[in-house]
C-alpha cells in the first residue's frame, strides 16, 4: 500500500515513503514485505509450533524465537545485536502464555539496507504478527529519528543523514498509550533535545498506527 498517495490522514508523515504487502509467502502463517524509503525487509512468522526436540520449555525459555538474517555472508556482531533488539521489541507484544510447550519463530530477512533497518524490521515483524493472527497485547511501532548538527530533528533519515547526524535514536512504542518499549540512542544531545526528539517520534508513531490500521482494513475487506 503506497503511503503518500493514500488518503489525507497520513499527511503528517515526514519520513521516507512506506510501501508494504501482506501475506507474500505461502509457508509461514504470517508474512509481509515492508519498505521505508530504500530499506526493504521481509518478515515471516511461523505460527505456534512445537519446540524442537531436545529443548524443554522451562520458565525462562522464551516462547518467541527470532532470527535476523543479513544477506551478506556470515552473521556479524552488528546483525546479532540487531537480532536481540528486534527480539526484545517484538517479544513483549505476544501473549506467550496462551500456547504451552509451543513457540513462535520470527524470521526477518534484510533485502536492502539504506539506513534505519532496525525500525523497518520491527514494523515488518509487527505486520507479520498481525497477518498471522496470533493474539497480541498491542502493536509495536518503531521510528528512527536523528538530530542533525544544526539541531534539526529528522524523522526516518536515510543513510547519509544518519552518518552525519549528531545523535541517532530508534524508539519502539506500544500502540495503546504510546509508552516506550525499546529505545536505543547514541550520540550527544542535550536533555531538552532528547525530549523533543522522543516527542517527534511519538507523533510519527501515531501516524504509523493509522497506516497499519488502513493496511489491515484493506486486507480484511479483501479477505471477506
Amino acid at each position, binding site marked *: 500500500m503506497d503511503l503518500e498517495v493514500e488518503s489525507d490522514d497520513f499527511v503528517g508523515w515526514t519520513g521516507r515513503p512506506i510501501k*508494504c504487502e501482506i501475506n507474500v509467502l505461502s*509457508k*509461514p502463517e504470517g508474512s509481509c514485505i515492508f519498505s521505508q524509503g530504500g530499506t526493504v525487509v521481509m518478515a515471516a512468522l511461523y505460527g505456534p509450533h512445537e519446540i524442537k526436540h531436545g529443548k524443554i520449555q522451562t520458565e525462562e525459555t522464551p516462547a518467541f524465537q527470532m532470527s535476523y538474517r543479513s544477506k551478506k555472508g556470515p552473521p556479524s556482531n552488528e546483525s546479532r545485536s540487531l537480532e536481540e533488539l528486534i527480539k526484545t521489541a517484538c517479544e513483549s507484544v505476544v501473549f506467550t502464555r496462551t500456547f504451552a510447550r509451543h513457540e513462535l519463530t520470527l524470521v526477518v530477512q534484510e533485502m536492502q539496507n539504506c539506513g534505519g533497518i532496525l525500525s523497518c524490521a520491527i514494523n515488518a515483524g509487527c505486520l507479520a504478527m498481525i497477518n498471522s493472527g496470533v493474539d497480541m497485547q498491542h502493536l509495536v511501532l518503531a521510528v528512527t529519528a536523528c538530530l542533525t548538527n544544526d539541531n534539526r530533528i529528522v524523522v526516518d533519515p536515510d543513510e547519509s543523514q544518519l552518518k552525519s547526524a549528531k545523535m541517532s535514536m530508534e524508539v519502539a512504542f506500544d500502540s495503546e498509550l504510546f509508552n516506550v518499549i525499546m529505545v536505543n540512542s547514541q550520540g550527544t544531545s542535550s536533555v531538552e533535545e532528547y525530549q523533543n526528539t522522543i516527542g517527534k517520534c511519538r507523533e510519527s508513531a501515531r501516524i504509523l498506527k493509522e497506516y497499519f490500521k488502513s493496511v489491515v482494513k484493506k486486507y480484511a475487506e479483501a479477505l471477506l
Partner: protein
Amino acid sequence: MRDTIFAKCDSEFVAAAIKKKKRLDGRRFDELRSIELHFGSDFGCAYVTLGETKVLAQISCELSEPRNVRKNEGNLFVNVEIHDMVCGVFETGHHAHLAVHTNRLIEKCIKDSRCVDLEALCIVSEEQAWEIRVDVSVLNYDGNLVTCCSLAALAALAHFKTPHVTIENSEIRIDSIKEHEPEPLSLHHYPILVAFAIFGENDDILLDPTELEEKVCESELVIGMNSFNELCGMHFSGRTTSNRLLIVNASRQASLVAGELVKLVKTKLEIDNETRRKNRGKSEGLVSAIHTDRILSASQDRSTLRVTQREIEETARSFLEDRQKMKVSEVESDSTQIPEPSEDMDTEEMRPVFRKDQKRGVEVPPMSSFGQDWAPSGNRNAWTLPNATLSDAESDDDEDDVDFVKTITDEDRIIDRIELNDSEEEHDTIVLQPKELK
C-alpha cells in the same frame, strides 16, 4: 507448523491427473510458473520469484591472497542458506538433504562450469585478488528450488560490479564509486539449471515441478544448460528409466527454457542500467518488488487441493442446485470427485460445473479456462482492490459476517463462589489477568 504431510490419496490423485495429461495448477507439461526478477539498489543483488518459490542472491567481494594452488586466479565461493523453518522444522532429514543437494548443484552450475572468468579477478598475481562470495538465501520453498537459485545467482553475477582498483608503487587503493566507474564481472556463458519431474510408465516429463509434484514424482532430472545450448551439468535421481529418448526430449525443452530465462535476465539488466543512467547510478531496487496493487489471500493461487471444510459444503450445495435446475442425469458420473472437473474436459462446449468464485482461496477453474494461455501468477485470481468493480456475488455476504459477540464482564469470569463455614470470612476467587502476573 509441521511440514505439510502429503497423504497417500493426494499422491494417487496427482498421479491420476498426470495420467490424464493434466496438472493440478492448470499448467501444461512444458510450462514454467510465473517468474519475477528484480535487481537491488546495490550491485550484485537479485530477487527471483518462481511461482511461490522466492530466493534472494547477493554478491560481495573482498581483497585477499589467492589460493596457493592457483596463483593468478581470484576465488569464488557459493553458499545456499535455507532457514530450517522454510521447509518444515521436523523434516530434519529432508531439510539437510535439500540444502546440501541444492548447494552442490548450484556450485556445480556456477563454479565448476567456470562461467566466471577468474583470471580477470586477479590484481597482483600471488598477492592480491578479488574473492567473490555468492550468498543465496531461500525465502520460501514451493518446489523447483534449483532453477530459482541458479537464476538468482546468475542474475546477481551479471548485475555485480567490482570497485575500480588503482595501484601506486605496490600500494593498492580501492576507489569509491564516485571516483571511478566500477567494472562488471566478465562472464563466459550463462548456465541455468532446469528441473523436471518424471512420472508414470510412459515417462511424462513435467517442467518446473511444485513441491507436491516433487514429493510424488518417481524420479527427478536436473539439466544445466546455457544460452548457447551447451550442456553444463546433469543430475538424475529416483527410479531408473530405460527410455533413452526421455533425456533427449528433456534437454531439448531445457535449452528452450534456458534461452528464455537468459533473455529475461538480459532484458531486466538492460532496464536496470537504463534507470541507473537516468538518475545518476541510483535505482529504486527491490522496492519495485512490492506489489501494492494486489493482495494474495492465502497466497496459494493454485491451491486446488487446499480446500477448507466450508468451501466443500458450499460448492457441494451450489453443485446440487445446478443439478436440480437442469434435471439432467449425465453429470451423475463425476459427482464423486467434487473438486475435480469431469473427464471430458477438453470439449469446449461443456458448460462450467462450478461457479468461478472470486473470493475463496480455492481456484476451481471452469473447463473453458484451460484454453487460455497462462497469465502470470497472482494477478488473475488474486483479489483486486476493493475500489475495483466488485461483482454482486460478494457484496451480499458482506453484511452478515460482523455478528455481535458477547462482551465478557468480570462477573462471568468468576469460576465459582466458595461457601465457607462462618468461621472464615467470605472469599471470591477472581481469575488473574496474565498482564497482572507479569
